[in-house]
């Protein structure tokens, strides 16, 4: 067990070192993440203005005041900082296609565990760079958080949501990447997934705005845990019973995708014919 922990630590440390090699690209990428949100805020500002529910009027659109909407977007950014996995699925598929995956089959190391640690390192490096700009933006926008900080219990639940959303995002994308064992190119599939993700995770708009049948649908899908759910927990829009129920469901989804990824990997390797020399 101890040896295993040391191995994990070494993988994590080396992956972290690798991440820090391209410092410039990394810092720039982190900062650019703030750009899309600015356009979204302007868009909603225009929407609120046009229905006469603008900034100071206190009016609401679908139960959201303008300030809450801005706060919601800032919070989905935090959610996505945990749950989004840039390049993961396509990277796995590419490793299958180019034969790089052989490395994991030959060496006594578990590929999924290795990738998870790698991604963890990726995220840690990202947070270390992004922490300052995030803090700055949140400080400047503190006025939009009209109900202030949530209580300690909610905050703890929020952190738990974020950690689960990391695992959910990871195993979901790995499962998609592993489809590469059957279809060498998964980029179109990934595009479709990203599209659904964008709308159904709450990245585009708060999901409770959706009318009846749609709201029921997004509720049973795992995607809402990637952006919407943590944000609404922070905003205090989820009552305690609902929160606990949803946390269990989220944990269930994580487990589902862990098992799915494992089974897919196992089957895929059996099918694998060692492409690329």
């Amino acid at each position, binding site marked *: 067990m101890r*040896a295993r922990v040391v191995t994990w630590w*070494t993988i994590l440390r*080396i992956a972290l070192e*690798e991440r820090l090699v391209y410092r410039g690209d990394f810092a720039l990428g982190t900062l650019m993440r703030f750009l899309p949100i600015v356009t979204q805020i302007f868009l909603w500002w225009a929407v609120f203005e046009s229905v006469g529910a603008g900034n100071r009027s206190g009016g609401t659109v679908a139960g959201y005041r303008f300030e809450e909407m801005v706060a919601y977007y800032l919070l989905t950014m935090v959610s996505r900082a945990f749950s989004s996995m840039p390049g993961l699925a396509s990277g796995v598929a590419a490793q299958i296609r180019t034969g790089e995956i052989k490395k994991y*089959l*030959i*060496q*006594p190391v578990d590929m999924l565990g290795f990738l998870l640690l790698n991604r963890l390192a990726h995220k840690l490096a990202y947070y270390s760079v992004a922490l300052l700009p995030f803090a700055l933006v949140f400080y400047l926008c503190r006025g939009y958080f009209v109900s202030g900080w949530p209580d300690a219990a909610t905050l703890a639940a929020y952190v738990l949501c974020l950690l689960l959303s990391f695992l959910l995002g990871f195993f979901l994308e790995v499962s998609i990447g592993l489809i590469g064992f059957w279809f060498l190119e998964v980029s179109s599939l990934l595009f479709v997934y990203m599209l659904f993700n964008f709308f159904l995770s709450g990245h585009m708009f708060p999901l409770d705005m959706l009318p009846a049948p749609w709201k029921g649908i997004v509720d049973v899908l795992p995607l809402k845990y990637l952006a919407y759910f943590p944000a609404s927990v922070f905003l205090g829009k989820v009552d305690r019973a609902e929160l606990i129920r949803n946390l269990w469901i989220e944990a269930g989804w994580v487990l589902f995708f862990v098992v799915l990824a494992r089974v897919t990997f196992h089957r895929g390797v059996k099918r694998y014919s060692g492409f690329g020399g």
Partner: protein
Amino acid sequence: MAIIELRQLAKSFRVYQKSEGLLASVRGLFRRRYREIQAVGGIDLDVEQGEFVAFLGPNGAGKTTTLKLLSGVIYPTGGTAQVMGFVPWRRDNAYRRRFALVIGQKNQLWWDLPAQESFRLHQQIYRIAPDAFQQRLDELTSLLDVGRLLKQPVRELSLGERMRMELIAALLHSPEVLFLDEPTIGLDVVAQRNIQQFLKYYQQQRRITILLTSHYMKDVAALCQRVVIIVQGAIRYDGSLSGILDRFSGHKVVTLQLADDGDANGFARFGQVLEVQPPRVKLRIARKDVTEVLAAILAQHAIEDVAVEDPPLEEVIAKVFSEASLLPARGAAPGPDGPAEQV
């Protein structure tokens, strides 16, 4: 018991067959025709502990597929294999800690980090004790002369340097069985020789078992006591390198240096004239006739110098490859004319 044991090991692939043209591409969207390709066609092979065996064969003969099967990267479609008592494709960690696969021009090291970091990771993955790790690392870096390069990012190393690092990474856990897939491909002559010398020394010191595929006869001649020729997924020859000449080449090349440069003609009656460059004449003479013919030549001509040589190995092997591919593929085949010679 042999350390590597293959029995009727077979692997076939299904390959999509597409006719030329756009229309065929569109048709391929709905109905695909596949062709079964027999990469390895049921081979039997035993390798004893401490042997250094070369796999020779034209591209696509099944050499690499065999190595992949033995490394557990792919599953066979038939037959069995055991390496050190393990079934490779079960990929037991106990097995994976005891062998290594090195593929020329394929990178297993972390591209952006110094090789040292990758080695450190291997130490953990393979659970190598710290003092054993340090001792092996020191030994390997000094043998391969890369001590000064350990701190340099791998992407900034030359191909030859990188290959040496790959070898170190593969040998740190002291594997008992080593599979080398064209380890010297693309390297210059000096780098090739360095790797050869290292492998030769290391194998003799440790008595590990090595299976090597290579297209460079120099690698094979320098390293391997035993050569297995695979063509179209079947073993065509199994024996010593010199045995290939005995079996497949019935000729010697005789070069004569004439004392008087006048009469370079009239040698056709002794054998096939390969080259006439007075005062030198090159003849191809059947092996069994060499002494007789040479005596006749010496009796009739004033000869200053004689050299009797085997034809170049590459030439003979090229002949074996092309002749074998004309034969129908067979299973574990003795050579075309008799049982395989065992070493």
